[in-house]
């Protein structure tokens, strides 16, 4: 699905990613954990195509194509999705209108016909139910006046609508109460299939009780320094990151 090799990325001359390697296959869920400033959100932004970052070295192959060569919107149309840590409020643009535009631009790109208004609305109803998002929110301005939990559920709703091959959840759990966390996790688990994959970026192990990863990676100083099974997350929760730093120092 995605193969990241020796990725180096800088922002304003400061190197954040320093030779990151990661390979994810279809059907897998990977968790990326790490202390603050280790480069977790930078990785998400670089993969999504944010312009502020400069890629100085390395390659990213997404479904056989050079991801780094694509525009942000092209990556999305090819099936990459980023659930934002801080979803953006867009006054005046309705959730529905923007999603219809997004879906139809994607379909046009893939050479498919535009979706009928009827099918689209049926899909909105089905997918908003999945994350227990009030259908009224679907017609409101994007994220405007949404609570923290509603914003995160709206991210998963959009993910459900766009049916990505690879979803990156950037700290989707931060700021969520346990009920909202369950709803979000349930959405992600329901959407999981053998053809798609998920990267869960998180600070806390708690989310991984609900979205169970196949692999847990530790990102430190711009590199993946340790990879293990889901139990590694529990170990990190208990012992923090210092023991990994010590391991590295040896």
């Amino acid at each position, binding site marked *: 699905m995605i193969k990241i090799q020796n990725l180096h990325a800088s922002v304003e001359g400061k190197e954040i990613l320093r030779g990151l390697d990661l390979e994810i296959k279809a059907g897998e869920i990977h968790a990326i954990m790490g202390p603050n400033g280790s480069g977790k959100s930078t990785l998400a932004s670089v993969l*999504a195509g944010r312009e502020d970052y400069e890629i100085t070295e390395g390659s990213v192959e997404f479904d056989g194509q050079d991801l780094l060569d694509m525009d942000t919107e092209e990556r999305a149309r090819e099936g990459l999705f980023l659930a934002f840590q801080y979803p*953006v409020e867009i006054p005046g643009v309705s959730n529905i209108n*923007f999603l219809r535009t997004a879906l139809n631009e994607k379909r046009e790109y893939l050479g498919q016909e535009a979706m009928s208004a009827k099918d689209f609305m049926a899909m909105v109803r089905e997918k908003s139910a999945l994350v227990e998002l009030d259908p009224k929110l679907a017609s409101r301005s994007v994220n405007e006046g949404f609570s923290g939990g509603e914003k995160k559920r709206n991210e998963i709703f959009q993910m459900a609508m766009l049916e990505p091959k690879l979803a990156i959840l950037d700290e989707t759990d931060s700021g969520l109460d346990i009920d909202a966390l369950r709803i979000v996790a349930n959405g992600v688990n329901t959407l999981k299939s053998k053809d798609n994959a998920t990267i869960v970026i998180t600070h806390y192990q708690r989310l991984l009780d609900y979205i169970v990863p196949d692999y847990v990676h530790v990102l430190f100083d711009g590199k993946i320094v340790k990879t293990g099974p889901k139990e590694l997350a529990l170990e990190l929760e208990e012992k923090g990151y210092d023991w990994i730093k010590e391991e590295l120092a040896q």
Partner: protein
Amino acid sequence: MSTDSNKGIKFTEQLQSTAINIDPDLKKRANDFLKDAELPTTRNEAWKYTRLAKLNKVAFVQNEDTSLSRSFEIDREACRITFVNGNLATNLSDLKLPEGVNIVRLRGNQHEQFKLKTNPEELFGAINLSYLSDGIYIHVSKKVKVDQPIEIIHVLKGSDVISNFKTIIKAEEFSQVNIIQGFFAEDGASSCFMNNSLEIDVMDNAILSLDKIQDENKEAFHISNEMIDQQKDSTFTINTHTLNGGLVRNNLNIRVLGTNCSTNLFGTYLLNGRQHVDNHTVVDHKVPHCESNELYKGVMNDQSTGVFNGKVFVREDAQKINAFQSNANILLSDTASINSKPELEIYADDVKCSHGSTTGQLDEEAIYYLQTRGISKTSARNLLIRAFVEEVLENIANENVRQFTESRLNDRFNWAL
């Protein structure tokens, strides 16, 4: 005469004085004023950001040819009257008027006497009176709710042609009417000038809405002087949407003379190239218990320039006034500019007033967010611009006018969704 020959009014030298004599005293004062008149410079506060020197580079002419290569319409269901360069195009005009509406052409009028509001000592008002091409008086009878909108279309055609036109509207007590003014230019019209004058009386308890669509061309000059008097318990709403034009100046002056009135002013200006659009508005609250709402929004691209100067007066006796005014702008390029000056002058002490002005760029964070959902950068920008102006467009009560405006925006800026 000024010793500086550049300052005199040269662009009217080839024009014939009008034979229309609607207010003889006023016309004489206008003629006297024009003898020594000069083109206002940017040192004149009222014209600080709008340069008129270009006008003197054109020797305007009058032209009575009313043939058009195509017809123009905004609301297909409206009763429509079309003027080409200020001359009635009979074949493009409806003869049947809605019940309760009477229209008198000013050219050839023998019966109606008018007491005009036009200031004959203001340059464009004076020129309008002196060289009036034609005009119409629209009268709406008492207690009549006119269901069919009245649409007055103006088309500029040819080269260096000027239209000096006056519209007078009187909505009698308890009447209700929607008037549409459309300003267009035929393909190939070059350096034409619409010098437009509008006078409205909204009588007690009447409701008048005016939808003004300016859709001329990049070479066209357009100056509007609009004077509205509102009597008690009346409602006046104006939607001014400037979609195209070279040099546009709208002077909108509303005097609220009676208590318990509502006044709504909505406007957009959407500019590219080197277009210049200047909206000067005045709402003068002279009496208590009234409310006014003003919202103008502008989107400027390329080297276009916008001016917004909105004044709200609340006179000493005008207590319990709610007056709101807002102007917001988006600059799409580094070379576009806006001069925005909202002003409140309040002499009463028990009022609720606010005003504000913002100018910014499109939110880059929002554009990125939309792109991550697969929307192209261009579509993302259009979605945001569209959302920005929608807040103003949604105030157009006439569905057909709103659709027309939106579809023209799609044509011009590719804002289709």
